[in-house]
């Protein structure tokens, strides 16, 4: 590392990556708040895994690695995954967790098989589809950032418009129905937003880790606030902060160098930053924190 770390940051690509992960951190935190409160934390995980075969199919059909085309394929398969989960839950005696597990692993398995087929094609290994499994933020280009910005904007706008509807849907679905709200359509809208967000995050953080971004910032935020509005803002802010920490660490940390790639990947570092904030929150939270409990315990002695 002969260059100063600031030089590394200012290197053109690093700024793009920061912009992309920052936007993703915010939108994952915001939309994740609703899925966590809806009791559907794991749905993001299932969606991400279900999206992988979609990316592969898209590539097989169009033979190019364009963000837009892969995105459409991924969203289609992710929604198909949601539909499978609903189908299994409603038409069999299986519970939702089993339905999620079946869908998640089956789609992921299909995705791996398809990506091997692609690698055996001429030019196949140039597709870099393996990057989607663990994420490779460094491969992001400016068009990707624009798409991510667009997705983030859509998510934030829809949530602003449907805030009170989503609130009552997550709190008391049957009551929402009794008020004449179209709960199925609202649920579908929410799931579509989660799909868009998850799929947009795949290139940067990967199939395996994206659900962490949807779950950890919201639950961390919940430790500090009992208001839905502030929970959403906190979760978005924490997602942003974790994305910044992870991306900057990935850029400046001297990591292992095997000749092909150098340093630590961005995705895992973002997730670990989330975890770090969560642990700090768990210790320091004013209401639910361990410190407070320890203090009470000491005082009682």
């Amino acid at each position: 590392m002969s260059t100063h770390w600031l030089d590394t940051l200012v290197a053109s690509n690093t700024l793009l990556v920061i912009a992309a992960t920052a936007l993703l951190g915010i939108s994952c935190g915001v939309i994740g708040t609703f899925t966590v409160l809806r009791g559907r934390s794991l749905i993001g995980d299932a969606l991400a895994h279900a999206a992988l075969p979609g990316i592969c199919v898209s590539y097989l059909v169009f033979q190019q690695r364009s963000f837009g085309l892969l995105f459409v394929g991924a969203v289609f398969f992710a929604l198909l995954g949601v539909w499978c989960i609903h189908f299994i839950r409603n038409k069999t005696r299986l519970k939702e967790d089993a339905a999620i597990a079946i869908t998640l692993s089956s789609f992921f398995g299909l995705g791996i098989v398809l990506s091997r087929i692609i690698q055996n094609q001429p030019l196949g290994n140039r597709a870099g589809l393996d990057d989607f499994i663990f994420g490779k933020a460094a491969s992001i280009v400016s068009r990707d950032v624009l798409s991510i910005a667009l997705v983030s904007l859509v998510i934030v706008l829809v949530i602003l418009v449907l805030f009170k509807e989503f609130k009552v849907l997550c709190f008391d679905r049957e009551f929402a129905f009794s008020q004449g709200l179209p709960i199925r359509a609202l649920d579908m809208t929410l799931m579509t937003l989660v799909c868009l967000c998850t799929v947009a995050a795949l290139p940067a953080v990967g199939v395996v880790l994206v659900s962490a971004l949807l779950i950890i910032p919201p639950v961390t935020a919940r430790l500090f606030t009992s208001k839905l509005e502030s929970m959403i803002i906190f979760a978005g802010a924490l997602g942003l902060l974790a994305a910044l920490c992870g991306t900057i660490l990935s850029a400046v940390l001297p990591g292992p160098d095997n000749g092909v790639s150098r340093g630590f990947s961005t995705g895992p570092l973002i997730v670990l930053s989330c975890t770090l904030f969560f642990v700090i929150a768990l210790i320091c939270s004013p209401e639910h924190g361990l410190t407070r409990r320890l203090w009470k315990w000491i005082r009682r002695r």
Partner: protein
Amino acid sequence: MSPPAIEVHNLTVAYGQKPVLWDIDVSIPSGNLVAIVGPNGAGKSTLLKAVLGLIPATNGFVKALNREVSDVRKEIGYVPQRETVDWDFPVSVLDVVEMGRYGRIGWLKRPSKRDREVALSCLEQVGMSGFAKRQISQLSGGQQQRVFLARALAQEPEIYLMDEPFAGVDAATEQTIIEILRNLRSNGKTIIAVHHDLQTISDYFDWVAMLNLHLVAAGPITEAYTPENLQKTYGGRLTILDQVAEAIRTGLPRSRQDATTEAS
């Protein structure tokens, strides 16, 4: 004469292959306090949900105020069992009560000042005006029940469908709730409540629907709430009811009968 609050025609509801309500036919007149009674698994909650349309009917149909239920949703307030929601949800008491206004507020709008005032006055009616800013996880069971009632009041509906409004509340809360319900009735509203305490039925309600998969009996308390109908509703399922039947046959005092029936 005002139209019946709720009309249920030949209603059959099934979960999968298993029927939970069979050919229910009942017309509930407006302006009454109506109890739905029956043993566990008799389909009481299912009846409320089927009336609301939360559970699709296999057969038959429901009308409210002479119209399709989906056309008069604003006029039907629903008070679900309080265990059905997560009380750790990050909202305040006032937020929950305001949800009763959402059907009136409509899309793209936030609750107005008036919505807030209505919600606050409903909280006051249930004796919880001091709790408006409280986070809902801090409430006791009775307070949760009162918040749910306030949410339905905020909707200002003509008909209230309540699923066990007295379950797990203390005597004082029960009194508060029943006074509110009586007050609503005197304003011409209809209240339909699933109720378990057979001892208080005659005191609290003036109309009853007795349910056990089939509709056993329905009508004013004085006509329908008889030992024979109770026997038919609960009979055969629990041995203790044989003792109730025996008690009725040997003519034990009324209060003792009630106590025995309730114990079942």
